[in-house]
């Protein structure tokens, strides 16, 4: 080989090494979680956060909480949880939101009307290796059912259930659910006839 040939081949080799290094450096940011690990992550059970836990953390002004509303802008404007950021699901992978969603310390809670949107968002972010993502179990529907308008309990409910219920009623008035009034009347309605029955039964026993 002539000198020029050797020189040109060396230049090509340098260029090829450059391309290779650039390529491997480029690969790192889109380093996705491998499928096997993703399966493990998907099967883990702590991906959900319940409405009760969320309410508790909101009421204690937890600064580590990042709420992400995945619904459309119009739905978000109509009603959203206090302090929630609106990122519609189709924008979840936009670079501008990466800093919000990719957290090491903060807890990112996704919610929609049900768990449907949030499960999708959770899957997408987990695949990118974001560690602190959670799904609000049952979404806003469950939030309304359990926190804003908690259903009255049966009298046979356990002590723990009553404690939870009283917490929910407190949360309801905290978040302005406004259903505590309706609930208390319904309790009275149920409670009143039972008391009467008891009275008459007691009277009969004495006789």
């Amino acid at each position: 080989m002539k000198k020029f040939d050797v020189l040109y081949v060396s230049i090509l080799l340098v260029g090829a090494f450059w391309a290779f290094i650039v390529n491997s450096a480029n690969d790192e940011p889109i380093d996705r979680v491998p499928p096997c690990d993703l399966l493990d992550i998907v099967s883990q059970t702590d991906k959900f956060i319940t409405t009760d836990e969320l309410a508790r953390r909101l009421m204690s002004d937890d600064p580590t909480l990042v709420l992400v509303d995945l619904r459309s802008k119009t739905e978000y404007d109509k009603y959203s949880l206090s302090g929630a950021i609106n990122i519609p699901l189709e924008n979840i992978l936009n670079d501008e939101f990466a800093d919000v969603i990719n957290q090491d310390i903060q807890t990112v809670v996704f919610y929609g009307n049900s768990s449907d949107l949030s499960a999708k968002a959770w899957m997408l972010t987990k695949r990118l290796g974001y560690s602190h993502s959670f799904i609000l179990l049952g979404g806003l529907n469950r939030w309304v059912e359990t926190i804003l308008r908690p259903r009255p309990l049966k009298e046979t409910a356990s002590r723990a259930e009553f404690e939870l219920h009283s917490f929910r009623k407190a949360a309801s008035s905290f978040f302005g659910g406004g259903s505590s009034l309706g609930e208390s009347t319904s309790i009275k309605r149920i409670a009143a006839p039972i008391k009467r029955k008891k009275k008459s039964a007691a009277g009969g026993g004495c006789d």
Partner: protein
Amino acid sequence: MGPLFPLGVIGDELNMLIGFLIGIGFGFLLEAAGFTNTRKLAGVFYGYDFVVLKVFFSAAITAAIGLYLMNHYGLIDIDATFYPKTFWIPTLIGGGIMAFGFITGGFCPVTSICAAVTGKIDAMIFVLGAIIGIFGYAFTYESMWEELRNSGAMGRVNIAEWMGISDGLFILILTVVAAIIFFAVSIIQKKVTANSDYQL
């Protein structure tokens, strides 16, 4: 920024003008490098001259490295460049026919036109044959060739993707292989020319 024409940076006229100037430069250099000489191309097959192999191989690698790096640094958008689909069966057959043409005629399609312009009669016949072939194919395409043309479809496939490696690694492997081949053919060339009296 690039490619200039598909992204609308330059218009039709300027595109034509640039193409024209590149064409002039390409033809001039092919003639200046002696590629219009049939013995140059046939030399690859006989083993006494590997310049054509070296030129086209290194041109492909230079283009690959250049395009890759320019794409990486945002000078060109590789997705906007022309990227044909692969049909491996007709490509294989066509490659065989091309090689047969190289060794018997001593021209490749481009060098045949350059040589015809310089007045070589065999090149003119070669070009005439190519034109007859083109028209013959075009007029019999639907009745005879359509099935063959569409066989072995692989879609728009990148060889690195197909092999399951990254583009950068493929370029590196290709360049190293090319360097080894260049070294090997220079030894072959030395041996062949030492034992015979081939003259261009």
